[in-house]
């Protein structure tokens, strides 16, 4: 039987999901269920002078109304679970419902629970809140200025934390022949998972058990946090998140809404459901990015990079969301040098409170920002010294023979062949021909451009010891349990929590490949804390490198035991048995063999097991990686700019990625495509805008431009394969690479196209009017 590892079998999730047979949280229907709706602040900053809920309570069909005061003693403040050390971090209390003050448009003020969703929504309009509107601040740099309104009284300067990494690169700057300085704006993005957030809670007063179905990327983290927030012991709290319709980071956090629904279910003795609408999703689900970055790159005229200094001001929004402080610090600040050999580097990050929706991880989380800055800086540096952008990259990329390579920021890049990926991309792009074509078209008044992004990503989070050292309030290992049934079918239980990435398929491939059985014989179970062993969920492109590795280890434990039984059955010693294609065979004697299924059956019958071998066939593994994974690659984007209107057309997109061995090429390609689309979304269209009063101006799909399929050409993808040396599968993450690489590739391409206009940089998103102003000599 040919190995199923490496084959593009179709995703087994899809028939279920595309025929409406998925089980999303909002699909949960329970007898006697009530519906909650949450009243959200219309003001970015205000004091609550009073709330009158009497009319809402009397509205027919309303069962209960809760205010901040009602829930204060019963629901603990929503915690922050990533506390970077030595950062003087401030975590002002984040009440589940506002008590005295609201701090962003969308902040929860009251909850109505009613017999129907419609009644609950109508009753929100009957709640009277007396607000004293206060001055608001939305820009993170303005929030740091003296005299800016304080988002939290106890943090008068609005600085939530101040974090640093690396050492002072002053000597590099002294030696430099060239220093390039630039300020970058990473605009705020709205994750917009297709499925809005939702929670259903059911409490059994008899047993004290609480079940919460919730849109989560990490059910055990939800259990961990909700247990503390609600005071329900872990063993009485079950979290279920089976089908989750995308998260992109926005379903990592533990939100107040989920805790409130659970409280209501307990207090009212009936199940309660809450599902946000799209407007709430825009306002009350975490946002991404929103940082200002000052970069300084020191180098020599021959193209050598010497030192990098980065200062970031990160907009954290009104509260520190669950994983938020880790994003601009660890996930950005440790990888600002990118794939380059930059001997000295320093990162400094200010996390700042503003009267905006809290930010948290958004696909790539920190690493897109780091890649953007270094890739833009590389182009600016090349421009400054008059060198080709590819030459500068070649000169500074860490050579393959220097791995493992420890960077100036302390990470050890485990493996890589950066020049190899770039070379492949260069061949696909036909670089020299492109430059000639570009020259030719310019003489006709047409402007095409090519942009590069050579990136390295840190993912596969990660060694738990490092998690602890960087303040992550949890472990980052992963679990797997493999249960082989008497007939040879297998159920796999994983602590990873797929929500669109297709691990029900790839994980089955890993196991089927190891056991030599049909992939249909393997079922993958995830997302239910009552069924799966403790795990830390899916984010940071960790599910396959960490969860998949746990699975490989558990599967190998099964094989180890099966081999013992097979040897016993074949009446030879273990060393004389080899396993291939699902069969145990006496070495050199092909006629003497037993199938995997046969051995499995004997393990369960236990009529004649070798001495000291227990019956059954089940194994569990807890896998803690020794290092992160470092996928890398080279992306190139070709655009044409219509200088008359400023419109940008993407003509080509070439992506060469290295995620180690590819388990399922179709799924990997899907991840790459989706990632590129999201990365380009930031470059060209997306951007959340607040007005001075803190109102979200881009509050719907009518104004917030999501990328659409028709905006893109067909992508050209390819791979190089450099296995990760430290995990049993050699795999690295692929879920975020596209988003990380694409944004600077696109911007570099547009800047390249507009070089004849003297353009050195453009602020994202590159909306046509900005371009038009430049090409028509108006100030952008």
């Amino acid at each position, binding site marked *: 039987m040919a190995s199923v590892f490496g084959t593009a079998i179709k995703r087994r999730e899809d028939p279920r999901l595309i025929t409406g047979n998925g089980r999303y949280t909002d699909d949960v229907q329970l007898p006697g269920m009530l519906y909650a709706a949450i009243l959200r602040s219309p003001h970015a900053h205000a004091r609550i002078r009073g709330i009158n809920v009497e009319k809402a309570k009397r509205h027919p069909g309303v069962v209960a109304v809760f205010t901040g005061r009602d829930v204060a003693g019963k629901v603990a403040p929503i915690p922050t679970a990533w506390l970077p050390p030595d950062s003087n971090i401030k975590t002002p209390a984040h009440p589940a419902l506002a008590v005295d003050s609201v701090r962003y448009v969308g902040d929860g003020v009251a909850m109505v629970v009613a017999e129907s969703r419609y009644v609950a929504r109508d009753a929100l309009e009957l709640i009277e809140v007396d607000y004293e509107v206060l001055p608001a601040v939305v820009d993170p740099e303005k929030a740091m200025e003296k005299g800016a309104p304080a988002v939290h009284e106890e943090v008068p300067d609005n600085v939530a934390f101040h974090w640093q990494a690396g050492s002072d690169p002053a000597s590099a700057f002294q030696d430099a022949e060239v220093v390039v300085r630039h300020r970058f704006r990473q605009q705020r993005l709205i994750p917009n998972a297709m499925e809005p957030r939702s929670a259903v809670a059911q409490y059994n007063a008899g047993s004290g058990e609480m079940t919460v179905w919730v849109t989560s990327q990490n059910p055990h983290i939800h259990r961990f946090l909700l247990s503390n927030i609600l005071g329900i012991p872990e063993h009485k709290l079950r979290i279920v998140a089976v089908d989750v319709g995308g998260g992109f980071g926005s379903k990592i956090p533990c939100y107040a809404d989920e805790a409130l629904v659970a409280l209501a279910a307990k207090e009212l003795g009936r199940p309660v459901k809450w599902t946000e609408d799209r407007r709430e999703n825009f306002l009350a689900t975490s946002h991404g990015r929103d940082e200002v970055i000052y970069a300084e790159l020191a180098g020599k005229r021959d193209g050598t990079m010497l030192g990098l200094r980065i200062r970031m001001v990160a907009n954290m929004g009104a509260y520190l969301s669950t994983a938020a402080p880790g994003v601009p610090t660890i996930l950005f600040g440790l990888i600002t040098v990118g794939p380059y050999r930059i001997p000295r580097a320093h990162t400094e990050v200010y996390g700042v409170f503003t009267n905006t929706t809290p930010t948290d991880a958004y696909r790539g989380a920190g690493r897109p920002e780091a890649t953007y800055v270094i890739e833009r800086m590389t182009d600016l540096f090349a421009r400054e010294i008059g060198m080709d952008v590819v030459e500068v990259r070649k000169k500074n990329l860490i050579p393959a023979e220097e791995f493992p390579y420890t960077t100036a920021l302390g990470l050890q890049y485990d493996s890589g062949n950066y020049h190899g990926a770039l070379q492949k991309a260069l061949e696909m792009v036909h670089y020299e021909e492109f430059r000639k074509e570009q020259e030719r078209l310019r003489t006709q008044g047409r402007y095409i451009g090519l942009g590069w992004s050579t990136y390295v990503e840190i993912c596969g989070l990660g060694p738990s010891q490092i998690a602890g050292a960087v303040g992550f309030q949890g472990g980052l290992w992963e679990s797997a349990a493999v249960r082989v049934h008497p007939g040879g079918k297998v159920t796999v239980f994983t602590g990873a929590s797929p929500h669109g990435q297709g691990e029900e398929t790839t994980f089955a491939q890993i196991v089927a490949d190891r056991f030599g059985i049909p992939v249909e014989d393997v079922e993958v179970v995830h997302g239910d804390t009552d069924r799966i062993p403790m795990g830390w969920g899916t984010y940071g492109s960790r599910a396959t490198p960490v969860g998949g590795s746990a699975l490989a280890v558990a599967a190998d434990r099964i094989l180890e035991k099966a081999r013992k039984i097979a040897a016993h059955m074949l009446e030879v010693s273990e060393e004389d048995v080899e396993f291939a294609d699902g069969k145990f065979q006496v070495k050199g004697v092909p006629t003497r063999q037993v199938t995997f299924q046969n051995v499995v059956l004997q393990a369960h019958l236990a009529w004649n097991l070798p001495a000291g071998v227990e019956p059954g066939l089940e194994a569990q593994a807890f896998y803690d990686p020794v290092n992160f994974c470092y996928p890398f690659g080279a992306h190139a984007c070709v655009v044409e700019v219509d200088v008359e209107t400023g419109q940008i057309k993407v003509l080509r997109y070439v992506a060469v990625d290295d995620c180690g061995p590819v388990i399922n090429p179709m799924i990997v390609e899907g991840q790459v495509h989706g990632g590129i689309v999201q990365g380009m979304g930031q470059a060209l*269209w997306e951007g959340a805008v607040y007005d001075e009063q803190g109102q979200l101006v*881009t509050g719907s799909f009518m104004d917030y431009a999501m990328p659409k399929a028709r905006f893109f050409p067909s992508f050209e993808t390819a791979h190089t394969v450099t296995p990760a040396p430290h995990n049993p599968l050699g795999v690295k993450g692929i879920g975020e690479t596209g988003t990380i690489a694409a944004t600077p590739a696109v911007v570099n391409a547009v800047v390249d196209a507009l070089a004849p206009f003297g353009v050195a940089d453009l602020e994202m998103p590159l909306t046509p009017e900005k371009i038009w102003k430049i090409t028509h000599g108006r100030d952008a």
Partner: protein
Amino acid sequence: MIPASFAYERAQSVREAVELLESHQGEAKVLSGGHSLIPLLKLRLTSPTVLVDIGGIAELKGISAEGDRLVVGALTTHAEVAASPEVRRHLPLLAEAARQVGDLQVRNRGTVGGNIAHADPASDLPAVALALDAVITVEGPAGRSEVPVEDFILGPLLTALGGSDVVVSVAFPIPKGKWKGAYEKYPHPASGYAVAGVAAVIGVDDGGTIRDARVGITGVGDMPYRARDVEAALVGNPATEEVVRRAAERADAEGSFSGDLFASEDYRRHLSKVYTRRALMRSLP
């Protein structure tokens, strides 16, 4: 997104729809494809107490050539217009505009009557309707009447329709003689609506002189408009690229321009000229 509660009525005929609307005294709204009305309901920007669904009224559907005009029933969807052999043969620019409305779902649900009645200043069809001097047939309590589109669209989301009136059809006159037309659109990347949309028609005589020129512009401000300055600069002149180029520069001489987050007033003025030129170039016979 949950609308406030409303009652639902389904009319079997235009007459019944008018009577239902009348009996609810301005509290009722017509529901066609729902692609403009339902978003407004969900955002609670409007809360009629009754919706009168006209979706089942057969007489409001279909496209027919009647003499020198194409009559499009109010309930005809954008997708039907775009695919209609009749429209493609007689008025290809109308098919072109319909094909560019929103996305597939919107084209499959949204209707011509609803589009005109809603009078969104960024809708596509009004530009074509203006360029072709379309006439809207309206049925109200006092019977049927025909209203030229220029008298029908009065402002942003504002029309000559009374509270109990129903749009029955839109008649698009087919230009005579030798002519060509085109619709050029700059879609908003978020909504798909026109940031600028220009419908153009150029008719020439046997000598190649422009005898008829019509330009309808949408998306750039509060209201779609006829660019009569542009038309005047074309008529009587030879149908050449140079003439078009010069005429298109007058696209912003009329119309009320406005800006938003995506495109400023200045930029929209510029776009009106560029898209007018592009539409006219493709309309040169």
